[in-house]
């Protein structure tokens, strides 16, 4: 990332329901459960995470988007690997 890009990153108005493409790989926190299924909530978009280990919640993971419904801002993703921890 160039110096200018670092200063300009985030300038603008960001949606509260980000959209993702199937096949896309993202890094995000697994944030909780919907029933028994782990989910990653990104803004107000909710991804159901398949194949997550038991201690996945509140840790950052690499996820592969499997499907995404842009109308109700939900999707499914596959858990690939743990890549980071919560700050606390």
């Amino acid at each position: 990332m160039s110096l200018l890009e670092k200063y300009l990153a985030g300038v603008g108005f960001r949606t509260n329901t980000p959209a993702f493409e199937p096949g896309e790989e993202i890094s995000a926190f697994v944030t909780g459960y919907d029933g028994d299924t782990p989910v990653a909530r990104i803004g107000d978009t909710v991804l159901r995470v398949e194949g997550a280990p038991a201690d996945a919640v509140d840790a950052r993971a690499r996820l592969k988007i499997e499907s995404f419904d842009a109308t109700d801002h939900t999707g499914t993703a596959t858990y690939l690997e743990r890549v980071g921890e919560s700050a606390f």
Partner: protein
Amino acid sequence: MVDSDESKDGEVAEELADARRARSDSRIEFYGGPAASTIPIGLFILWAIVQSGLFRIGDTTGLVAGMLLSLIVGMFFAKGDWKTYANTIFEGMTQKVAATAIVAWLWAGMFADTIQAGGFVGGLVWAADFLSVGAALFPAITFVLAALLATGIGTGYGTTIAFTGLFFPAGILIGANPVLLFGAILSGAVFGDNLAPVSDTTIVSAVTQDADIGGVVASRFKYAIVAAVLAFAGYLVAGSMMSGIEVSGSADVLAGQATALGLVHLASIGVVIFTAVRGRHIVEAISWGIIVAAASNLAFGLASVGDMVLFRAPDNVALAESLSWLPFLTTVPAGSDQVGVGGSIYAGAAGFFPLIVLTLLIVAGARIMIRGGGFEAIQDFLLERVATNVRRAETTMVLGTASVNAMITINTAAEIAIAPYVARIGERYNINGYRRANILDANTSALGYIFPWAGGVLVGYAEMRTLVGAENFEWFTNEMLVNPVEVWPFVFHGWLLFGVFIVSALTGFGLEYVSDRESEEVARV
């Protein structure tokens, strides 16, 4: 031999496993349930409000005493063996969050004092003199110059003291409105506290949200500049509308303090900001800044070696007497309290010692709250009842940080206390670490300089009182003092920065998610 080595290895492995188990399993049960685990932090916040808010004592070591007593009181509510409680204090203190903040503060302190020893304030005085602005423009220019100083030295309190001692009386003599002038100084302090990579609050905001300091500085520029441009315009307009006081007898306060060459430290500050934003480790970035500052001090005769590092040995030590030609060694009367080490490197680092001890104790108290379930209870309440979508989550983070900082005078302490909530609520919505750090720091900086009991306002007022009847300030009377309760509406940059974040939280301006981009290596704080 082989057997005994193996058995030793086994013992070590077992000890390590025990320690790991203790770390992961050791929940502490409290009489009164999880709520009682909030006693150490809760009592500390109460102490901080009483000490700093009600009694107006801005003494960081006083807060250390409060936190120590709170930890002892909390222990009496812990069930079973108190060893677990005691071990949790150690566990909290050894967290990386505390260690990284401490390292960055020590370096920042050395840098700040070295550019001050090198006459950076004198350089700003020269700039003000050179621009020879009138009464209407003076508050706006004071805001810009105070912001520059605060961005360089990272301490809003230090900026407030330096500017209240020099620019405040100078502005009054020119005919600027005192209340507006004091507000402009505090606004400059807010700007630097928020943006400077060497600011204690910037450092805490980055390390508690798992973000690198350089990236945090770059990403908060967009908010700071919007608020600063509006604040500058505000001081221009108000400056032409609010009149000053007639002063009989005059003196040029700024003349004699001006050192044009002191502005060379803009380069020292530039080096730190540039290298940090380029992604170099903050220790490396500030070290380069210290080297450039020290070299400039010596090259331009702004400060001597002894101003930066000085051994003051007792004069009955023969070796010291014979080596006293060394630029960093001098002798002082044996047995006097002058014996010791001094200079900007020493004083800059030492200035942070009380805050370092306080930070270690607060994170220990926070750990007890986490182990006792109190943290989770408050977090669940916020997530289930208040922060129920991303906009509300961000608004909660802004208002939560602002209100804790409005209550606790010493804003770094308030920031450390609220940081875990900002981290966890933000993570539950995958809000990017840079954004979380920006929400945390902007509202910490802003609210620390507005209300009458805020630390920044108090240090400025204390400095102002020393002007009454001081040598060369015979004209400065009690009537010229700005009562701390008068200044709050005029800290334009503070209010605007808070406003920018309320609008940002409600509209998504500047919002980034974890999935949008990652912080640079976490080690690169």
